[in-house]
């Protein structure tokens, strides 16, 4: 079989003749692929930031406790444990091992603390409390002793403390600020007693200065560095003394068996957290908590405590909601863009029908013709998509082609599809039947086919809304498509209503004495059944209004947050893009109907219509669908917002369920802009066609 070869002169000739519409389609593809290609990676990066920000804001540490091993000796004595610091180190190591590599990778090095119960400073002045604390981490935190030295052991390594013995002495170091506030010097005894009035014998071994007071380890026990206001509500001040590895065993004996609290702290490192790592970390944290020993257990089991899982769950919900809301906006922009591309293809094919029909009559087969058109559209669309994605790569931290696919497919397929059908229709033998019944049957078949398509859209819209209400917006593409499909369904309803409305207006105009109103209304009635232009206008206006309302509603209740800001930016970007697509749709629809419009106007000119009157008639034709879109679109958009916002989980972004806040002034401005565009389109058309003489138009039968 011979492989069909494109007729290259025809391919290049057509492309040259229709460079304008082709470039316009390319510009739409490039712009939308830029948006669709850049938004997902930007959202991804925003999600990373959101996770990090949530961890920074909440400081969700991971803590693990374990009871200290008992130090009972024979005969009711307690035995000093000289290697207690090493036991604490072991405990820290054991806890670290339990984390697993994934979780461990996003945490700072662990810090082990051993803290005493809170004691009262019994110097008779204002209420002040004191705590003994031990801090241990690989490599710090380091201190410099500016007076005295580190706490030393109070007794021999294997000393024993008999039951009822006097308080076991223990040495602590004080920071400069603590020592100054307490007016204590090295060697001084800190007057301390516990809640039961038992005196504690704690002596100052030295005064220290932290090498790095910003070291995160100090954050765990800030009272070690400076006096801290107490959180007890009575105006107390908290102090703490630093234990050393040597004095920790003495502190153990200075308190009851279970009074010292041993904890290992793991602090997440936000810079190592990514959105991708959240699920596995969340799962590990949940598993640790599930396997955690009971706080009442008297064994050495690990007892995990953290709000990290809750923080991650919240941020997952927020990011999920933001992603879903972004999906809603992206689907809206893509839907409008696809409709605009279909309209552009329709315009292109209308311009080409004579050439396509001529090619068929010269013997070119439909597959070859379709192939040539496909070649042209593929080159244009893919080059534009590559440009859009390349630009997206420059502007965003990555690029995603998946969302751009529908636009590229529409740009590639629409022109060849419409063109092949138009060429087939232009040259087929079938004629309009002479029999009236046959004509009626043909008409009804067309109407039935259209009704089936419309019903399909309505069913899809209903399904999307049901999915949105049942699964929420995060349930996939279908619920995210609910506003777009709702706008499309609303546009179809208005499309059905428009011919009735224009017919009504025409009837009223016929009773009037204004000829221009009659001719404008007549043209409007003649074109009111055109599907694509009104679909583009209404859908883009409705979705633009939806995006504006989403932006205004989210903006009014939003605290600062990366997620909320990103979503707002996307909402505003969509709110700008969609009206532009609507204006483009208006221009394309006007251009598609322009030949018939100006043919009629030319005929009216032969009856004595003046040129300026012809412009009014043209405006009269374009105004009804534009007015329907300008008024119906925003109302439809606000209705869709009312129907869907409850399922978008906006409260996860704004912090509270925001009240619907349609920005009526902006909606009005968008509507007025669309209407005003008619006042631009008509004079431009008039200027473009003024060059053609009436005789040319009437002879060629084409404006």
């Amino acid at each position, binding site marked *: 079989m011979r492989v069909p070869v494109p007729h290259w002169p025809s391919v290049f000739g057509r492309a040259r003749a229709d460079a304008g519409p082709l470039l316009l389609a390319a510009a739409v593809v490039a712009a939308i692929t830029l948006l669709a290609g850049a938004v997902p990676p930007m959202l991804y990066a925003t999600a990373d930031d959101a996770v990090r920000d949530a961890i920074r804001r909440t400081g969700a540490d991971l803590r693990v406790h374990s009871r200290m091993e008992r130090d009972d000796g024979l005969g009711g004595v307690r035995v000093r444990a000289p290697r207690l610091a090493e036991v604490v180190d072991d405990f820290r190591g054991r806890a670290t091992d339990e984390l697993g590599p994934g979780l461990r990778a996003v945490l700072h090095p662990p810090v082990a603390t051993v803290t005493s119960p809170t004691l009262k400073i019994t110097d008779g002045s204002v209420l002040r409390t004191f705590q003994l604390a031990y801090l241990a981490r690989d490599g710090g935190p380091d201190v410099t002793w500016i007076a005295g030295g580190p706490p030393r052991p109070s007794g021999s390594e294997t000393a024993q403390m008999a039951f009822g013995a006097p308080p076991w002495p223990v040495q602590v170091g004080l920071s400069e600020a603590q020592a100054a506030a307490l007016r204590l010097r090295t060697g001084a005894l800190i007057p301390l007693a516990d809640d039961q009035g038992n005196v504690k014998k704690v002596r100052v071994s030295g005064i220290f200065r932290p090498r790095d007071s910003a070291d995160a380890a100090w954050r765990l026990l800030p009272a070690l560095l400076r006096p801290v206001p107490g959180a007890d509500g009575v105006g107390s001040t908290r102090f703490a003394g630093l234990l050393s590895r040597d004095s920790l065993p003495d502190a153990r004996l200075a308190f009851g068996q279970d009074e010292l609290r041993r904890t290992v702290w793991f602090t997440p490192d936000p810079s190592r957290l990514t959105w991708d790592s959240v699920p596995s970390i969340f799962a590990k944290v949940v598993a640790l908590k599930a396997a955690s020993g009971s706080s009442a257990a008297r064994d050495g089991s690990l007892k995990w405590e953290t709000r990290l899982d809750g923080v991650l769950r919240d941020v997952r919900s927020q990011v999920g909601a933001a992603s879903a809301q972004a999906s809603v906006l992206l689907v809206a922009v893509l839907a409008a863009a696809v409709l605009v591309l279909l309209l552009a293809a329709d315009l292109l094919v209308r311009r080409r029908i004579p050439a396509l029909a001529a090619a068929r009559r010269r013997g070119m087969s439909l597959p070859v013709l379709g192939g040539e058109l496909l070649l042209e559209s593929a080159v244009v669309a893919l080059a534009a998509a590559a440009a859009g994605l390349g630009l997206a790569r420059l502007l965003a931290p990555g690029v995603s082609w998946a969302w751009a696919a529908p636009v590229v497919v529409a740009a590639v397929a629409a022109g060849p599809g419409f063109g092949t059908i138009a060429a087939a229709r232009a040259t087929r033998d079938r004629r309009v039947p002479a029999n009236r019944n046959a004509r009626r049957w043909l008409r009804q078949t067309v109407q039935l086919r259209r009704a089936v398509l419309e019903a399909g859209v309505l069913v899809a819209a209903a399904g999307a809304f049901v999915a949105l209400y049942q699964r929420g917006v995060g349930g996939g593409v279908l619920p995210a498509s609910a506003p777009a499909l709702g706008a499309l369904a609303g546009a179809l309803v208005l499309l059905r209503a428009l011919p009735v409305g224009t017919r009504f207006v025409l009837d009223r105009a016929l009773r009037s004495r204004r000829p221009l109103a009659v001719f404008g209304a007549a043209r409007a009635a003649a074109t009111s059944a055109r599907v694509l232009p009104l679909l583009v206008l209404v859908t883009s206006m409705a979705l633009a209004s939806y995006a504006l309302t989403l932006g205004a509603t989210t903006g009014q209740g939003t605290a600062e947050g990366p997620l909320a800001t990103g979503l707002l930016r996307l909402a505003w970007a969509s709110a700008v893009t969609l009206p532009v697509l609507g204006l483009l749709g208006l221009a394309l629809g006007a251009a598609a109907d322009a030949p018939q419009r100006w043919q009629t106007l030319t*005929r009216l000119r032969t009856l004595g219509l003046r040129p300026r009157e012809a412009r009014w008639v043209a405006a009269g034709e374009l105004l009804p669908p534009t007015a329907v879109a300008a008024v119906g679109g925003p109302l439809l958009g606000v209705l869709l917002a009312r129907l869907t916002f409850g399922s978008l989980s906006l409260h996860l972004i704004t912090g509270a369920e925001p009240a619907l806040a349609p920005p009526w002034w902006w909606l009005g401005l968008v509507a007025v802009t669309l209407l005003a565009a008619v006042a631009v389109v008509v004079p431009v058309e008039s200027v473009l066609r003024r060059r053609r003489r009436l005789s040319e138009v009437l002879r060629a039968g084409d404006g």
Partner: protein
Amino acid sequence: MSRGPLVSVRGVHRSFGSGANAVHALRDVTFDLTAGTMTALVGRSGSGKTTLLNVIGGLDRPDSGAVLVDGTDVTALDEDGLSLLRREKVSYVFQTFGLIPVLSAAENVGAPLRLARVRPGERERRVALLLELVGLADHAEQLPGELSGGQQQRVAIARALAASPRLLIADEPTGQLDAETGLSVMALLRGVVESEGVTVLVSTHDPTMLALADRVIRINDGHLTTEPSGGRAGS
């Protein structure tokens, strides 16, 4: 009764393109049309018939020469002046009818009267009269798409007569009609010349139509090849 010329064409040239590629559609065309007569313009395709009709009706402008219609120099009028001329003195009938598809036959006929701001009652009477004249009184409310080709052309003729023009220009009015219907349309044009006193200039290919004309003008390659002759005047 002696009747003066309604249309005077004097030394009209019209060419398209320039230089070696220029196509001379009309070359020094000069003739008169007597008021209240029907003149057939005959010639092969591309001979310049339509260009001549357009120049006379003000749809196109000659490169040189003058066209006077009822004493008005058409070539000197601006767009508004030409619109007024078409509204009051000159009307057209085209091969493709040129009706407005969403308006009924009656509304199509009434369109020029609306432009002329004729009062509704008078407009309706005039429309009814014209539809009666063209034999379509029973089809007044039908849309053009519901009418046959011949009926549509009759509506177009009625519309052309609505504003009581002095000159009716018809470019191949029977081109899309079968022979019998075409003949009836030509007979209708002949009838309005008689009844309305309109001057009709009609281009046609069909020699059988010529018998209905008072005069026949032949055009070939932009030249009038014969002086006005033939038709009813010459028969």
